[in-house]
C-alpha cells in the first residue's frame, strides 16, 4: 500500500475533463453495476484489467493512476461492455478518451509510437511487403493504387497529431 506521502494528489475534475473529450461524454452516467467487467474477455483472463475499476477510479479523480498504470491499454476494443451497459455508458469509447488523454500527457506505450511512425511515414499502419506486392500478378490481383500519404500528412498536421511528443515510454 502507498503511504499518504507517496500518494499522488487527486484531480477532482478528472471525470469532467474526460466527459468533455470526444468519446468520453457518457462517463458520469456509470452507477458501478459491473455488467462491463462481467462481459469483458480481458478481465476474465487477467486481473490487471477491469473496466468498472477504471471508470470508478476516474470518477474518484485518480487521474495519475488511471493514465499511468497501464491498465487502460489492456482493453481489446471488443465493445461487449458498451453493448450491454444498462446506463448506456459508451465504455470502449470512454477508454479511447482516457488513452487520448494519456498520450497527450506523455504516457505512450512503445507499440503506439510505432503505429504513429508508420502512419506518418507511409500513410499505413502495416507497411506493404515488397515480396507480396511482386507476387500480386500471379494471383490475378491488379497493381496496388497509390496510397494517399500526402493527404494523410496534411490531416496529421491539421489535427496536431504530428506534434505529439512521441517520447517512448512503456506504460506498464
Amino acid at each position, binding site marked *: 500500500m502507498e503511504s499518504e506521502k507517496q500518494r499522488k494528489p487527486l484531480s477532482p475534475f478528472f471525470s469532467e475533463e474526460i466527459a468533455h473529450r470526444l468519446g468520453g461524454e457518457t462517463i458520469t452516467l456509470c452507477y458501478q453495476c459491473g455488467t462491463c467487467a462481467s462481459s469483458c474477455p480481458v478481465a476474465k483472463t487477467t486481473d490487471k484489467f477491469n473496466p468498472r475499476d477504471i471508470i470508478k477510479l476516474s470518477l474518484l479523480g485518480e487521474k495519475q493512476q488511471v493514465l499511468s498504470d497501464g491498465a487502460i491499454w489492456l482493453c*481489446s*476494443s471488443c465493445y461487449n461492455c458498451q453493448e450491454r451497459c444498462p446506463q448506456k455508458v459508451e465504455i470502449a469509447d470512454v477508454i479511447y478518451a482516457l488513452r487520448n488523454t494519456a498520450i497527450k500527457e506523455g504516457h505512450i506505450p512503445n507499440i*503506439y509510437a510505432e503505429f504513429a511512425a508508420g502512419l506518418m511515414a507511409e500513410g499505413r499502419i502495416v507497411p506493404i511487403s515488397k515480396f507480396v506486392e511482386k507476387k500480386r500478378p500471379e*494471383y490475378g*490481383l*491488379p497493381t496496388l493504387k*497509390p496510397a494517399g500519404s500526402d*493527404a494523410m500528412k496534411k*490531416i496529421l498536421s491539421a489535427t496536431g497529431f504530428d506534434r*505529439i511528443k512521441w517520447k517512448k515510454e512503456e506504460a506498464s
Partner: protein
Amino acid sequence: MKSYALFLGCTIPARQPHYEASARKALTKLGVGLVDLDNMTCCAPPPLQSIDLETSLSISAYNVCLAEEANLDVVTLCTGCYESLAMANNTLKANGKLRERVNKILSSVGKEFKGTQEVKHYLRVLVDDVGTDRLKESVSKDLTGLKVASFSGCHLLRPSALLKFDDAERPHVFDDLIEALGPKSVPYKNKLKCCGGLLRGYADDVALAIARDKIVNTTKAGVDCIITLCPFCFLTLDLGQMLIKSTFHEEYNMSVLHYTELLSLALGIQPKELALEFHKIRLDNVLNKIK
C-alpha cells in the same frame, strides 16, 4: 449490377493476398463490380483511435470523401476497416456539429464530408445485391460435408447502435450466408467473444490466452475449420496456433479460412487461384471434403 469502391485497408494487401484474391474473384463471378480508387489510406482503426479520436475520425471521413467524389458506396473486407469507416460515416451523418469540426480539418486536403454514400461490409453486399437465393443457385461444389465454426470478429457487430449490421447478441446473417453455401455452422462456447487480436504487441501473453480459448472451444465443437472475416482474427487464430504450440506445447491444427475463400471454393473457383499457401495451418482436411 451495382459497383462499389473497394476499400482494402493495410493488412490485406500487405499480408493476406488470399483474402483479396478470393474476395475479388467471388464477387466478380457474382456480377458485382469493384472499383479501386487512388489515394486511399489506412482506415484509422482502434490503434489510431486510441491515439487521437479527432484524427482517426478525420482520416476515416477522408476515405469516405473519396468514394463520395466517385459517387460510389464503399465495400470493405476487413471488419476493422468496416467499423472505422461505417462508424465515422454514420456518426458524421447524424452529428452536424462534429461534421463541421471534421470538415474544418478536411479543408486542409480540399475535401468536404457530405454524407451521401454508404459503407457496407462484403457480407451486406452479398445480402443486398446478390441475395441468398441467387447465392445458393450459384454454388457449383458440394460443401454439405463440412462442419464449421463461424467467427465474425467483434467489429462486424459491435457497437451495434452505430453499425446496425445484425443483432449483436443473437446474430444470424453470417451463419445464414455460410449455410447458403452448404456447410453446417455449428454452435460453440463463447462464439461471440473477442479473439484478443488487438492486444498483440502490447500484452502478447493476454492476447494468446484469449486466442487459445477460441481454438480450444472450436476444437471441442468438432468442426473442420473456423470461418473468419477479419484479417486480425485470421492472423490471431492461424499464425496464433504456431505460438500456442511453442508457448503451451499444444497442437490443434484447426484450419482457418476467410468466408470469401469458402465462397470462392463453393463457386467452383480453383484452389490454385486463391493463394492458399499464405495459410499457416494446412487446409487439406477441408479441401478433401469439398466434392
